[in-house]
């Protein structure tokens, strides 16, 4: 389910941290979902994995315990080859496979909760300090004007939105930090579905969402 029209890609810092395995789970999910849709970032990730392999290959060898190889062969004999499970999107599906694993199915399995003004969300069960949610923004509607204390990754899965930075279509990912206050507005033609990951609560700029924030868990 790759898209040739992607203009907004992952940063080197995010790709390197994903390759190193140091990102919070919610951010890893957004990165894995974008790579599922973007061949360019998949290739760049390959380069960062190669850096990791080169660093490991350059490590001074550690001393292994006496019968390490024998113990490993015993493990192999206990559990033979694992079956191949293909991690691919169902035909015509909207959610990339890593997102579907958290939802337990495609779009029709998402348990949406309204958050006001037609916007709906579904929080995904990730561990750690960052959170991931699916957002459903009706065509032409806006997510309330907000800023960020930390980093927010927003990946478009269907439809498109626009904020003061640019226009974001399917597969595009916006990497927002604390410098950005924005009001994402969905395109008029189609409802917009996004995956958003944040490592700190959003900061709403008007009083109504601010009061509602503890209830919305955003």
């Amino acid at each position: 389910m790759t898209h040739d029209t992607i203009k907004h890609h992952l940063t080197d810092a995010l790709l390197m941290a994903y390759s190193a395995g140091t990102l919070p789970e919610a951010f890893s999910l957004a990165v894995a979902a974008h790579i599922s849709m973007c061949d360019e970032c998949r290739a760049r990730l390959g380069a960062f994995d190669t850096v990791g392999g080169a660093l490991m290959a350059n490590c001074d060898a550690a001393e292994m315990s006496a019968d390490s190889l024998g113990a490993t062969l015993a493990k192999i004999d206990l559990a033979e080859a694992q079956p191949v499970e293909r991690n691919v999107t169902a035909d015509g599906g909207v959610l990339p496979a890593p997102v579907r694993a958290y939802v337990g199915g495609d779009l029709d399995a998402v348990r949406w909760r309204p958050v006001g003004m037609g916007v709906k969300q579904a929080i995904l069960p990730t561990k750690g300090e960052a959170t991931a949610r699916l957002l459903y923004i009706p065509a032409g509607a806006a997510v309330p004007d907000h800023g960020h204390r930390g980093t927010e990754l927003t990946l478009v899965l269907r439809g498109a939105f626009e904020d003061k930075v640019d226009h974001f279509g399917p597969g595009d990912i916006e990497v927002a930090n604390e410098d950005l206050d924005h009001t994402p507005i969905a395109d008029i033609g189609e409802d917009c579905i996004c995956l958003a990951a944040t490592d700190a609560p959003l900061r709403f700029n008007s009083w109504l969402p601010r009061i509602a924030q503890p209830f919305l868990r955003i």
Partner: protein
Amino acid sequence: MEPVKVKEEKEHPGLEWSACILRIRETRDRAAFAALFRHFAPRVKAFLMRSGADAAMAEECTQEVMAAVWQKAHLFDPSRASAATWIFTIARNRKIDALRKMKRPEPEDLPWGPEEEPDQEDSLALQQESEKLEQAVAALPAKQRDLIEKAYFGDLSHREIAEETGLPLGTIKSRIRLALDRLRHAMK
């Protein structure tokens, strides 16, 4: 049984490791596995210890990583990753699971799997790139290499590296960027 070595394997030792994994995949070759184990297991263990595992945990995880190499050999594609890269990704995933106790969401697979007969030219080209990168990593100035290693091994965010090294966050980001630019340049 002495494995047949083609000329490229002698010139590019990495290709020999790829060939070992293919022999595991095709004939469950224990001699090939033993050779692979002797070379990579001590490096996987060193990587895990530098990531914060104690010696006993690193030993146990290394055995699991190497057992996974055997079990997943049918998924290895030498035209897409060198043996070192592929084993690194398995060790990295074990680290996230055992040390960070988190799940690791993976991108979906490409619609095609590894080919039965991997393309020799593609495998060779990929091996040459990987070797160039290994040399470029080894040739990085000490400060840049140290930061890249901390970022990969240390289970540290940039902010935590800042606290550990006393360097401001901006300096760390620009040094890592410099190191990446240098690696990219070395690849050209």
